[in-house]
């Protein structure tokens, strides 16, 4: 098989960077497996319970960058109890004991402790990059340890984590000798920081390209920081409040003119709308704009801003922009690829901010649209069919109608035909989230047409087991399926048990699956962990197999039952 020495093959493998491709390469033959494993530097583990750190370390001694994901996706919506699992500690301990020269760690939905962070900061002399997304369990003391001990830190990126804030010293823990920062994002931290320390840090970081501030950083500090770092490419503004006639504001306007490298803008965690005009000069060059955490901006303010953003590729915004505002986006942002519209008031239907009209306008105006997350108050089949005609490039299509089972308000029909049109015309669709009134029919369409679908999220939909079966049988590439409050039961669950070995995970909550069926599945498939999450205090687990299970989470694994499960999780 090998006409070339190993070193040559390895060099060829250097050009193969995607995880999927490297995984495929390793399966070709023993020789390639060996060469690949010694040369692999980056590993992605989508479920931290699918493998142990020891086996990871044994297989990839050259590991430099590790990505780990913990809790299931529905944990974002409080459907998974707090201490379910996803602890990073055993991973860091194992890596620290080994000879692995870890440089980069990216975690999503994991529980991270201050001790873990401290151990991490002290165990890997070349550690360069820490990215934590939707994690919890740590405080700013842990962040301080990273700042203090990672001498060559390039990236500290904290996105949407729940961090207990012990106020302020962590930023001052970056030593004076630390000049390597490229990316610093602390927008999710709530507490005070030493503003002077921040200024000095930015001043001594000539490579700083990305800076995202938290709410307590005021406008005059922002102005000083931009003076020091006009080379920024990505900026997250903290507090953006001042009197437009003040001297500080004039200085800010002047310095913003110099920041012509900024391509990505976010934050505005506190904002005075009258100050937004200072931003207009950099809008021309923006490719990413995230105003979804800026509730102080009204529809008019958003529309005025967006009109300057002709090169925008990704837009995250609140629904107070309104259908009209989306119309302005559609006529201005011809390069738009990704749109996310979040609800500004998820529980008040009285103020119908965006409807199907906005989405239709976007689909007509933005031919490059491939990724959508859209929270709205209503949707019609006609609108979805029009969107499907206009847009055939969707990779991600997530529609959330705030009323969980709302029918088409014009025809009173379920939205089966609308979603059917979407999957029929978007052959590259990888991720789909459904909502509204839906019958088994929509799942027939999904099974028939969504051949590339990898992730599907379903809530309050379907009539019978047939719905789930259409999906399991038809979607050959399915990796993650998450279902809540649907009438799917044992028949669907057990029809093709081997299917779950081809998937990362299945979540079913408030469906019609019995304990008995879960036991059958667990017994037959030793390669799966079947977890029952039972939060009720009263019930014992030795109960009736006919009991309906409230929450079931199953996932494929190479290492059997996990040892860290809490009491309320039953591993079958």
């Amino acid at each position, binding site marked *: 098989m090998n006409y070339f020495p190993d070193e040559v093959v390895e060099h060829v493998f250097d050009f193969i960077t995607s995880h999927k491709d490297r995984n495929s390469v390793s399966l070709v033959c023993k020789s390639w497996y060996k060469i690949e494993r010694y040369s692999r530097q980056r590993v992605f583990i989508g479920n931290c319970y699918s493998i142990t750190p020891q086996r990871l370390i044994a297989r990839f001694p050259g590991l430099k960058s590790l990505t780990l994901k913990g809790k299931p996706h529905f944990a974002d919506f409080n459907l998974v109890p707090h201490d379910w699992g996803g602890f990073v500690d055993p991973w860091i301990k194992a890596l620290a004991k080994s000879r692995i020269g870890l440089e980069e760690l990216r975690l999503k939905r994991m529980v991270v402790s201050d001790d873990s962070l401290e151990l991490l900061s002290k165990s890997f002399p070349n550690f360069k990059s820490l990215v934590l997304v939707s994690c919890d369990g740590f405080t700013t003391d842990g962040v301080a340890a990273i700042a203090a001990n990672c001498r060559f830190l390039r990236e500290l990126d904290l996105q949407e984590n729940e961090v207990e804030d012990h106020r302020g010293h962590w930023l001052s823990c970056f030593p004076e000798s630390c000049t390597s920062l490229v990316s610093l994002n602390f927008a999710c931290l709530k507490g005070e920081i030493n503003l002077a320390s921040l200024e000095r840090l930015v001043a001594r970081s000539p490579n700083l390209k990305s800076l995202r501030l938290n709410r307590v950083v005021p406008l005059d500090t922002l102005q000083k920081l931009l003076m020091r770092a006009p080379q920024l490419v990505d900026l997250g503004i903290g507090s953006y409040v001042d009197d437009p006639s003040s001297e500080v504001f004039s200085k800010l306007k002047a310095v913003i003119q110099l920041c012509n490298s900024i391509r990505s803008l976010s934050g505005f965690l506190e904002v005075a709308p009258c100050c937004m005009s200072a931003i207009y000069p950099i809008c021309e060059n923006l490719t990413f704009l995230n105003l979804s955490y800026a509730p102080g901006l009204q529809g008019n303010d958003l529309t005025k801003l967006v009109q300057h953003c002709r090169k925008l590729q990704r837009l995250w915004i609140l629904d107070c922009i309104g259908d009209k505002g989306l119309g302005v986006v559609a006529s201005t942002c011809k390069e738009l690829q990704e749109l996310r519209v979040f609800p500004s008031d*998820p529980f008040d239907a009285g103020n119908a901010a965006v409807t199907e009209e906005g989405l239709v306008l976007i689909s007509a105006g933005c031919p490059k649209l491939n990724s959508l997350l859209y929270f709205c108050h209503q949707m019609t089949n006609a609108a979805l069919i029009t969107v499907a005609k206009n847009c055939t490039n969707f990779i991600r299509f997530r529609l959330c109608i705030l*009323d969980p089972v*709302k029918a088409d308000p014009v025809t009173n029909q379920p939205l089966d035909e609308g979603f059917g049109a979407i999957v029929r015309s978007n052959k590259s669709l990888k991720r789909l989230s459904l909502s509204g009134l839906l019958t088994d029919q929509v799942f027939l369409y999904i099974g028939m047409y969504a051949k590339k679908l990898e992730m599907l999220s379903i809530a309050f939909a379907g009539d*019978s087991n047939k719905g789930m079966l259409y999906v399991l049988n038809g979607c050959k590439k399915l990796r993650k399926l998450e279902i809540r409050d649907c009438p799917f039961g044992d028949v669907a669950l057990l029809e093709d048990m081997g299917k779950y070995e081809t998937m990362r995970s299945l979540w079913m909550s408030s469906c019609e699956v019995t304990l008995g069926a879960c036991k059958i599945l667990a017994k037959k498939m030793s390669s799966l962990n079947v977890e029952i999450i039972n939060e*009720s205090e009263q019930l014992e687990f030795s109960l009736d197999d006919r009991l309906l299970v409230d929450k079931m989470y199953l996932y494929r694994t190479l290492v059997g039952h996990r040892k860290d499960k809490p009491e309320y999780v039953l591993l079958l």
Partner: protein
Amino acid sequence: MDKEGLGLEITELRLGLPGGGTEKNEKKRVFSEISEEEENEKSNGPPELQSKSQVVGWPPVCSYRKKNSFGDKDGSKTSKFYVKVSMDGAPFLRKIDLALHKGYSDLVKALEKLFGEALRDAESCEFVPIYEDKDGDWMLAGDVPWEMFIESCKRLRIMKKADAKGFGVLQSRVALNGTLKE
């Protein structure tokens, strides 16, 4: 295995929260009833929709976003109203619990205590108390009744009167000028 239609729902056994919420089937029916009502009463603000906020995990907005972009509409109003207070010229900010005070004069006394030194050090400056309300607007303190004020006040700033050119009314009902001068 489908028991639907045989009226056996009442014998369904399930593992779940004790007395936890409505039955899932009823949930679905409740929503469709409400949807139908919505069709019929489009003009009225439907109050039944309040019950939908009881469904755990719906709408699927991640909890971090819920906590950080909707203010406190999600319920859980605590009895504390801590707001930040900044004062022009003072090196750091303070926090004050508005719930502890009965009115504006009470508040002024507390502010004097917090920033006493800075106020004394400021050279013959007059100060205007302003606050940021829920809409993000900066308002002069003292115009609205106290209860309304503490509901809408998100942070306070003791601003130098000299900086307030561009602001209209400079006379505040709150006697801050008199008490805080020098």
